[in-house]
């Protein structure tokens, strides 16, 4: 009650209301029509797509009475499942085709026996932390999308539910070391991953994958830079959308979480496809490539063929290739 207001104004207001009612009373009783004034569900849904009101329980977000859900369900059951299947299976098919046509990319000059340090132990540690996290995240994510149809019929509902439960926990927890890995990779490799003219020429020459010969490249070639930026941008989007899903209702509503889930699923599908290609070319696809992330030291001839400019830079810095101390004397 406003204390400053004199008593007589309150009285006057009350009297005015009473008089008003006395005059309008009979007329209003005839006019009240609960049908015309009542809120209608279909009308509200048409106007707002959601029907929302007030609840007297503490959980205020439960004030949403009816919300859209059909669109997300259709996306989840249809589009997302198709996009992911095509991305993953399509990339596997593409790699198989590439392997059949091109075969393993060998070192043209053969192994030199001289080694040059490509990635130091810290770089390798960061790479493998991120990589292992990504693999678990990808597999547990694919399990949530397709396990019900692929794995559950094989191992039964109970075993599958237990597995999926641990998968969910792994997905939630490993997201954090994955994000740390992303930040560290960005910091240690961004300098060498800024696109330049060399990359344009590298792509024009077919990147050494399609054409003959080896176009010059620095520490990272155009293809590797694309992988780097896919990981940084894709991983960044996955992190943001994943965090929104990990913390429900932290500044989001159901519609926002549906959108975050769709983005999360689409980006994952793309990044899994990119990573399959990355894993292929870093292992069975190319002779000598795995050493870069394995021992960290690559063969000089491999480095000359795939990263000619980088080898020159290293030599200019005085880091000359050496025979590894544990090498077996041969020839």
């Amino acid at each position, binding site marked *: 009650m406003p204390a400053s207001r004199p008593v007589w104004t309150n009285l006057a207001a009350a009297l005015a209301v009473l008089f008003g009612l006395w005059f309008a009373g009979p007329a209003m009783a005839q006019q009240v*029509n*609960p*049908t015309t*004034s*009542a*809120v*209608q*569900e*279909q009308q*509200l849904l048409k106007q707002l797509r959601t*029907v*929302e*009101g*007030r*609840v*007297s*329980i503490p*959980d205020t*977000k*439960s*004030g*949403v*009475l*009816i*919300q*859209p*859900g*059909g669109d*997300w*369900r259709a996306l*989840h*059951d249809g589009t997302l499942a198709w996009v992911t299947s095509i991305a993953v299976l399509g990339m596997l098919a593409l790699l198989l085709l590439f392997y059949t046509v091109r075969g393993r990319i060998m070192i043209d000059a053969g192994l030199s026996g001289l080694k040059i340090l490509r990635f130091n132990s810290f770089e390798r540690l960061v790479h493998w932390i991120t990589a292992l996290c990504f693999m678990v995240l990808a597999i547990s994510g694919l*399990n*949530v*999308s397709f*396990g*019900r149809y692929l794995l*559950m019929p094989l191992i039964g*509902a*109970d075993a*599958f*539910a237990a597995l*999926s*439960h641990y*998968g*969910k926990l792994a997905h*939630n927890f490993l997201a954090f070391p994955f994000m740390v890995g992303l930040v560290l990779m960005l910091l240690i490799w961004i300098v060498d991953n800024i696109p330049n003219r060399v990359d344009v020429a590298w792509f024009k020459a077919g990147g050494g994958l399609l054409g003959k010969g080896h176009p010059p490249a620095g520490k990272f070639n155009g293809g590797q830079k694309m992988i780097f930026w896919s990981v940084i941008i894709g991983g960044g989007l996955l992190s943001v959308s994943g965090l929104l*899903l*990990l*913390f*429900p*209702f*932290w500044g989001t509503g*159901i519609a926002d*979480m*549906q959108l975050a*889930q769709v983005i999360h699923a689409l980006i994952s599908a793309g990044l899994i496809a990119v990573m399959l290609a990355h894993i292929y070319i870093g292992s069975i696809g190319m002779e000598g490539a795995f050493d870069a992330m394995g021992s960290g030291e690559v063969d000089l001839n491999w480095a000359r063929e795939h990263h000619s400019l980088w080898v020159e830079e290293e030599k200019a810095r005085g880091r000359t290739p050496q025979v590894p101390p544990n090498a077996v004397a041969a020839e």
Partner: protein
Amino acid sequence: MARLKFLCDADRCIECNACVTACKNEHEVPWGINRRRVVTINDGKPGERSVSMACMHCTDAPCAAVCPVDCFLTTADGVVLHSKDLCIGCGYCFYACPFGAPQYPKVSNFGTRGKMDKCTYCAGGPDGLDTAAEYAKYGSNRLAEGKLPLCAEMCSTKSLLAGDGDIIAQIYKERVVKRGYGSGAWGWKTAYKDTVAI
């Protein structure tokens, strides 16, 4: 076989929240979880209506369609139940549900969800067992005793109706015809792809 449904006659609901309280008490639903709630639309304005809402036990339920571990079961009476033994608390049913029915207890760090909880239409768990463990998970099984959901049975204005869809639709239809108005069977179009034609 009956097709069990809920129908809330919003022109009768007085927002007393007795259905909410009865549900919590009957099933000893834990803190922070409400299987049923009353939402008041246009609160304080002309034409204000209150609607009591819980899981509507949808036809072709969206929750069941998107569940990654396939933990849902629709009974012969059309009641949508789920297994808390299988549920992994991923939240997908909550994204898909048009009525905000799935609820999750907060069990650990961040927003990690526990096993989903929702209205069972007072039908207990999917296994139909009568044990203390089942009661702790799902609440009581009134349907097995030949009783309807408590929320509807004790509704003082008989606003909330539960039972065979055809019968409660008929009751609602008669009411609308007699009193001359009705704000509609809330959620029926979304849940059952069906409205009560007057």
